[in-house]
């Protein structure tokens, strides 16, 4: 890897392994993700896409190898600094991970409140982001009362509300119709244009084709040559 790569890479993985019960979910993965890159991670179900994303924000620890985010080796990050790593990320989880006992508004506002933003900013920003994803009429609804697609849109709103430097989106359009899907992709693209690094894990080929971006293809935990798209 050249020096210029090192400077441009915001995330670097070196020979990363992740095992679950002696079975490798990721095997010897070496990968650079560049600053302000739009990257698709694709591959069949069980290939390790979600696992890869989890290793980046230390949702899981690597079994072997190194992960550097912004030049910091995150395996060595002490517990009381993990929140600083997490604040660099905006994450759309595959299973949304919305808090069922908090309203749509509260779920999204939480990110800003946890970041110590003042109440006025929180109110303005939260409402505006929820408007962007078309959820402005369901602010006080609770996640269990929402459809899958609506929950997904709230999850996207929460991921972007804090203006993160890196957006990780795990199947962000999996439950959406074509129109909502392109709205969400437009939103991610807009953040990318404004300077964010965006990583989208999906096996939706139409989605990948919709945006010109680098695509890495995972198969059984390893980077493989992409089959013809």
């Amino acid at each position: 890897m050249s020096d210029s790569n090192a400077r441009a890479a915001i995330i670097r993985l070196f020979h990363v392994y992740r095992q679950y019960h002696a079975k490798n979910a990721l095997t010897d993965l070496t990968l650079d993700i560049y600053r302000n890159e739009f990257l698709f991670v694709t591959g069949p179900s069980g290939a390790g896409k979600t696992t890869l994303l989890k290793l980046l924000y230390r949702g899981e620890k690597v079994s072997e190898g190194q992960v550097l985010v912004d030049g910091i080796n995150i395996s060595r990050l002490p517990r009381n600094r993990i929140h600083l790593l997490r604040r660099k990320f905006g994450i759309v989880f595959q299973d949304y991970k919305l808090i069922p006992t908090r309203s749509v508004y509260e779920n999204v506002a939480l990110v800003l409140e946890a970041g110590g933003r003042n109440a006025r900013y929180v109110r303005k920003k939260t409402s505006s982001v929820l408007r962007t994803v078309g959820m402005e009429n369901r602010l006080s609804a609770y996640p269990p009362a929402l459809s899958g697609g609506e929950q997904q849109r709230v999850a996207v709103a929460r991921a972007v509300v804090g203006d993160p430097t890196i957006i990780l989106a795990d199947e962000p359009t999996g439950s959406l119709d074509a129109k909502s899907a392109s709205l969400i992709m437009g939103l991610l693209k807009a953040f990318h244009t404004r300077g964010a690094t965006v990583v989208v894990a999906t096996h939706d080929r139409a989605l990948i084709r919709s945006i010109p971006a680098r695509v890495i293809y995972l198969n059984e935990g390893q980077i493989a040559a992409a089959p013809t798209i």
Partner: protein
Amino acid sequence: MLSLHLKRALQDIRQNRLLNAVTISTIALSILIVSAAFLFFLNTTDMLEAWRRGIRIMVYLESDLDKAQRHAIETRIRKLYGVQAARFIPKETALEQLRAQMQRQSAILDGLDQNPLPDAFEVQMIPTASTWEKAEELARSLEAVAGVSDVEYGQRWVERFVTLFNLFRLTSYAMGGLFFIASVFIVGNTVRLILYSRRQEVEIMRLVGATERFILAPFYFQSMIQGALGGVCGLVALFIMFMLIQSKIQAVSVTGLVNLRFLSPGLLLTVVTASTLVGWLGCHLSLKQYLKV
């Protein structure tokens, strides 16, 4: 930020009403019992103090003593340690007093052909030197004086009571400690239960970059609110009980004889502060344990 945590704490209390009610009641009960014991001590100490200040020892003389012997006894009494004054009460005066006390029943005394009462000295102790032990000591010295037939002080039974009182005081210290531990444990347990029901939420908050402090602050607020409310409820209950007891006592006793007092504002504040701290401590211990796992 503070108001945000407070809001979330109140939200949590509302969402776990029953659990919180049980916790607050338990704290209230502990506070009630402990501060009732304390109030009892406060008032009994007052009473004992009042009695102690007024210790009077009656020294009854043998009959058939002449004036010189009486003077000799008086001189000896005055020289004893702790005696402030000694007043001679001739048996005639004693009879007069008895007559006055008996009022209408005094007619029975008229039937007596001679005065059955002995001459006596009323001995008053120096207030600063008078403890129950000293009083007993002095009483014994007085008994040893030749020509003295009997020594009596009205509050002699108080001495026995003081021993019992001290024993009771120790018991309630132990009891207070026990209730303290129980309250801490119950608050901690409530925190654990709520934390357990919220573990998914806590995990999500961590994932979106919340600090442990941000996540846990509402739990501290909640526990401290429980402690404070428990303390206030306990004291209100104590005050109601106090009023009831006071009105009962005032109904049976002569005016002003028993003057009960309630805990001072400073003490009330101390109790509420202490029970708030109990809430904090319970929460802290519980969270420390939780975070280690």
